[in-house]
């Protein structure tokens, strides 16, 4: 994997490299370098299969990480491209013209993370959710338990006790 990284590095400015396994590595790529790198990987390195496109919310660092995972099916190696986006203004260029399936991924990311991909077909359509009016649910600051408690009613009448506290009360009933 490192060879590939070194080779790419001579052509493109690249960020951090993580050698995860013999056949899997992750490379951080600049937002505007992504497209040339993708073209290069697809056309010259045989990474013709877009395995997945997803995002990670690093809310502490105030950014989104987009992961484009590509696979070279002949050599059976994978490379993940990490693109860091500003969390305040998450907009990314669409790649549906390179891989048509990316449109679906982008649609999902728009809905679940609120990352916009202008010009991606159907990106504004409802994909999974319907009538959603809260924060995009996959964002870290969206608290699913809180939302669930507020929106849906749970069956009442459940009480639990802390074993330590309850036992203490039994053993030392005089203590305040």
């Amino acid at each position: 994997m490192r060879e590939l990284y070194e080779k790419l590095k001579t052509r493109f400015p690249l960020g951090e490299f993580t050698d995860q396994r013999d056949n899997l590595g992750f490379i951080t790529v600049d937002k505007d370098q992504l497209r040339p790198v993708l073209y290069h990987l697809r056309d010259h390195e045989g990474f013709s299969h877009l395995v997945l496109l997803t995002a990670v919310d690093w809310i502490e660092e105030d950014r989104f990480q987009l992961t484009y995972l590509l696979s070279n099916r002949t050599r059976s190696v994978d490379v993940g491209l990490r693109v860091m986006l500003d969390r305040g203004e998450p907009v990314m260029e669409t790649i549906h013209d390179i891989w048509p399936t990316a449109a679906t991924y982008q649609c999902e990311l728009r809905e679940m993370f609120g990352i916009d991909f202008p010009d991606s077909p159907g990106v504004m359509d409802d994909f999974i959710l319907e009538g959603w009016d809260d924060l995009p649910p996959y964002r870290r600051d969206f608290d699913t338990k809180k939302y669930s408690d507020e929106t849906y009613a749970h069956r009442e009448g459940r009480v639990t006790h802390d074993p330590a506290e309850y036992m203490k009360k039994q053993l030392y009933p005089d203590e305040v």
Partner: protein
Amino acid sequence: MKEELQKRTVKGPDGFEFEVDPLNDYYCSEAPKAHPPAYAKIVESFFNWARSESIWILGFGTGCGAIEMRPLMTPRFDAYRFGVQWRPTPRQANLFIISGYLSVKTLKRAIRSYEQMQNPKYVLGLGSCTINGGMYWDSYNTIKKLDDYMPVDLFVAGCMPRPEALLASFEELKKVIKAGKAEGANAYAENFDWYKANQKKVIKDWDMPDYNW
């Protein structure tokens, strides 16, 4: 609201223009009515017997429990022996098996399907997720208590319940029907406002009539 549900002017094939308000024109606005049982007790008992021995299930796999429906339709368990059949349309079905969790999106369809079924109709809540949210208790997209949204006759514990548990629930349902206690459809009509309020609380984009017959 979806575009196709908005009021609009339409030009027919014959060139005639007319106004369409889909929600009013295409749907019935009448609320459901409670239908009393037959006047004669013996007739009602006979009807209940017939109802209990001919249970037609709506073929709508709302959740994962639907996968255990197939073994029931096929040789191993062969539920047809017990008077149970699957129907592809809600009009002809009497029993709606909510096979597990209902996402909000499916809840909307489930309500429509339920309302299109004819009185008397029965609902079976399959698995823990219909009882109290199950393993999706903290999910933002699934309802927790099925009986808030439609009257439920029986719940079956399990995740997911085995086909045998389902068969046991059919047997139990037969008993309930024969005892004349499966009056979910009437309960729905009588507490219509309450159910509607609950439904509308979770379905944010309510773009259908209040009652689908």
